[in-house]
């Protein structure tokens, strides 16, 4: 990859996550990453107020 070629988004994310993958492995992930992005967009955003997925009840904790 030349210095002027921008790093693909998936490659940047994986590098930040501690993966040191060869270019051919990263190239194969491009299509999957685009599908993943589209899928994640369907989830919407989490409202900042309290919501069920983060509810914690200490009296019910083991």
């Amino acid at each position, binding site marked *: 990859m030349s210095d002027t070629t921008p790093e693909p988004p998936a490659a940047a994310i994986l590098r930040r996550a501690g*993966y040191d993958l060869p270019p051919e492995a990263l190239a194969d992930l491009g299509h999957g*990453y685009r*599908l993943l992005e589209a899928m994640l967009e369907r989830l919407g955003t989490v409202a900042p107020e309290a919501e069920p997925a983060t509810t914690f009840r200490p009296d019910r904790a083991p």
Partner: protein
Amino acid sequence: MRPASITEAAALFRARKLSPVELARDCLARIARLDPELHAFVAVTEERALQDARAAEARLMRGEARGPLDGIPFAHKDIVGTAGVATTACSRLLQDNVPQEDSIAAGRLREAGTVLLGKLTTHEFALGGPSFDLPWPPARNPWDTARFTGGSSSGSGAALAAGLVLGATGSDTMGSIRSPAHFCGITGLKPTYGLVGRSGVFPLAQSLDHVGPMARSAEDCALLLEAMAGPDPNDPASSGRDAGDVRGALRGGVKGLRIGVMRHFHETENRASPATLANLEAALGVFRDLGAEVEDVTLSPLAEWHAVAATIMIAEAHAIHAPWLRKRFADYGGLFRERVVLGAAIGSEHYLAAQRRRHALCAEMAAAFRRHDLVVTMAQPGEAPLIEAAPRWGVFELGSLASPFNVTGSPAVALGTGFGAGSMPTGMQIAGPAFADALVLRAAHAYQQATEWHRRWPAMAEG
């Protein structure tokens, strides 16, 4: 004399017309003849099988049989831990893994008297497949060995369809019991989340993982569920419940039951093939003839259910595998590592959004079950594709008809409804509210009592 089901084998044992040793030898001979083409087995435990069969036979002769599973030829998906028998998850990372203890499911089935024939092919770690770059070739569909079995419980589906075993374990995180059941024309139950303990089974995604029975009929699944279910002190998701008298509950039929059909899933959002649709309509006609009320039910779009399930599955799988993926990326098969490494791109905001949406979808499904006793769709929209054509990125393509019941944890059974234009099995999926496993199997059993599809064998398994 070759039994077509566990129920038939148990009857033949009781009548002294067949012995467990004879049946085990017959299955081992069939494995030797057919498995070189099917690749359903990762390992065959012949010595153990004959030892188990002799012990079962001795109990039968003494009148001390442990129940209807005593002497039944069985095998486990290779993520299900088996004491002293390698449990590889079809991954190079675990190829030398030999557990010291049985998983709770394997232990319960051993105690029930099943005869262990071996371990069955799985997609790598129950996700990556069908793979051609692993030491274990992918299982082939006995109805046409050029075609896919479905997965990830691929060997379980193939072995049952070919009559190599009469019962098997499977696991189901996003359809891995029900897809092979559909494509291979057998019967597979994803029980209610938490009903069957998972300790000793390698996890894929803990908040979606289920272990369940696969067999040739709903009645056989009922027998297996009774043995497999129960409290699991080492599984934090264990419901602590037994399954109860599931086989006894099968007799109720479907008269008066309200069955909701999720047509928008399989007619619009992931439109099924004409033959699969026609066979489902015929199956719904059987339910009507048996006295059920059949009407449509509409839920959130299928893509939302799939997105929630896949986001949670890949995020949780990545959390499990990230330490190995960073160090041994090339040791995984291509399909597994490609899918799971992308979990690094799923942020905490995505995971929480998926879990939040999951709560809403569960409430929606619960409301549907107040109006309907059961719901019906399909586990797959058509016949098995050619194995080379199995989708590489299907996990992200938002069409999984199985995923809604992993999101909700509801019991769901997949079973055959006939054959399609390619002479391959078609199927349907019946689901019910949490812990209505017996009701789900009761409807499947009523259908199978009125039809013959589940009794058919592929040509290679005849004789």
